[in-house]
């Protein structure tokens, strides 16, 4: 059977600059996959390759057997929703912003949102706990609230695949956990497939079903968090000494850092 989401031999970018080099991986339906790797490893390039912002050099991307890059922009937006790091929606109300998620479903001469559009937007605003903020300006929201609104807008597109670029990077742990719990539930309750760039290895290990570790524009390792988050690969990719253990409650891998001072003292002993 065809995998739900499949990237094969995919290279993208502008020749002469940093490019993604023949990346292949698959994500089954309903799975929450994380992309990890240091800065400059190609996470964002891969992300922008999937969204189509960067030109494809080789290979293909398939969603349910359909080539993503052959799709019309609108059809693509009905299948793939994107949440970026910074929402920066400007001076629009939360409800207006979330309703923009219905734009891919708009007919050419359709001028107003339908009742159905409003109902769908409301449903996902309630799910993301942003309905109470609906009349506020996006500018007036906190970082965490903006991300929630961003997710509500993405869900309003009713996509098959949700693509997130470090949605929790600027947030405190309360907000991080709230948003990641929500994203995890989406897979379980809506059958949504999620691919997310994550910086924090521990969040990646705790929440993601599978991980893809990038290095220099290639995939270094892919598999379950237990397979990917081992000290050998992490030390090689991040050029940092780490210790990995298993979280006693969740049984998920955890990564510990060690300071230079501690390392020196350890060596003396």
């Amino acid at each position: 059977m065809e995998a739900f989401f499949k990237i094969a031999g995919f290279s993208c970018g502008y020749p002469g600059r940093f490019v993604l080099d023949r990346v292949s991986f698959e994500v089954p339906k309903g799975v929450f996959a994380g992309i990890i790797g240091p800065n400059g490893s190609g996470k964002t390039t891969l992300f922008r390759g999937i969204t189509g912002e960067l030109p494809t050099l080789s290979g293909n991307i398939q969603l349910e057997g359909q080539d993503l890059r052959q799709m019309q922009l609108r059809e693509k937006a009905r299948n793939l929703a994107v949440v970026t790091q910074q929402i920066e929606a400007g001076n629009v109300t939360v409800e207006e912003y979330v309703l923009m998620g219905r734009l891919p479903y708009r007919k050419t001469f359709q001028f107003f949102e339908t009742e159905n559009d409003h109902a769908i937007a409301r449903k996902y605003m309630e799910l993301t706990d942003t309905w109470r903020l609906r009349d506020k300006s996006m500018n007036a929201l906190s970082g965490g609230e903006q991300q929630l609104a961003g997710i509500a807008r993405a869900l309003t597109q009713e996509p098959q695949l949700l693509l997130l670029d470090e949605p929790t990077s600027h947030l405190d742990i309360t907000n991080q956990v709230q948003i990641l719990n929500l994203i995890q539930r989406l897979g379980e309750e809506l059958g949504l497939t999620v691919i997310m760039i994550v910086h924090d290895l521990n969040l990646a290990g705790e929440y993601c079903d599978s991980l893809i570790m990038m290095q220099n524009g290639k995939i270094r390792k892919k598999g379950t968090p237990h397979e990917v988050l081992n000290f050998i690969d992490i030390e090689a990719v991040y050029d940092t000494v780490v210790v990995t253990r298993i979280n006693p409650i969740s049984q998920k891998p955890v990564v510990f850092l060690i300071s230079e001072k501690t390392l020196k003292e350890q060596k003396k002993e």
Partner: protein
Amino acid sequence: MMQKKYIKWIVFLLLLVIVTVVAVIISLSSGEMNISVSQLPGLLKTREGLEYTVLMQIRLPRLILAISVGGALSLSGAILQGIYRNPLVEPYTLGISGGAALGVAIAIVFSLQSTIGAIILPVSGFIGAVIILFMVYFLSIRRGGLNINSMLLIGVMVSFVASSVMMFLMSITTSDNIQSIVFWIMGSLDESNSFLIKIALYSSFSGLFIAYLFAQPLNALRLGEAKAKHLGINTGATIRILFVTASLLTGISVSVVGVIGFVGLVIPHLVRLIIGNDYRILLGGSFLGGAVFLIICDTIARTVISPNELPIGVITGIAGGIGESFLSWF
């Protein structure tokens, strides 16, 4: 359930239409020959007399031109501010008016009027505007796509070059020619060629129609180009079509009436303040607002020192500039 927002829009549009009708009536009745408001219906019924001729031959064409040009300039401002995501952009920022003025200056300096006739002024103005439009457009193409930021910069630069060339022309020509150029640049709605008035009218309403096809894409562009694309908007085509539409509207307006500043900047800004940023109401609101603004300014321009006439650019500049400063001060 009717959305609250839509009710607000309808009320706003109704108010604007009422204001427009009032402005039209005042404009038609005031001028050198006093025609009172109560006389208007009678005149339209009998269709005779000097008053009727003045009304239909002088004031009505001028009114139509004011509506077309005011609407077109203000609409262009709203469109360009939308695609550049910059509230300071106006139709003249991109060098369109500079190109038109240069075209007219060339025509005057080489006295093409005497050989071809007066129609050459608007024609050469329009040619100048279109040349600049294509220069800005093609210089801004990077990697097969329009680069919005460099487009703005190139527009401003091209505009400077055009005005420098024009100053050069003015420095080497006769003082009569300089006077004609300056007079043209100051702008006036006093246009007797009904063909030009028709072009202005049809083009401005076609522009409004085209703009409305892109009202929702413009809303999405408020999020930025990349994010609009994620929502399935063909941003490249949207920006190209709207840029050309706004530029042609500006080019036609400037060719017919000269440079009338501030309408494209102040009116969309004012409409945004009142009704918000949704382009579905902003486009129409700006169009009507610009029309009303120009009707009022023109009525002032031709009545204050009657029987003489002030250049309308003076009125729009002063009224617009002071109004805008006043608004931003709040």
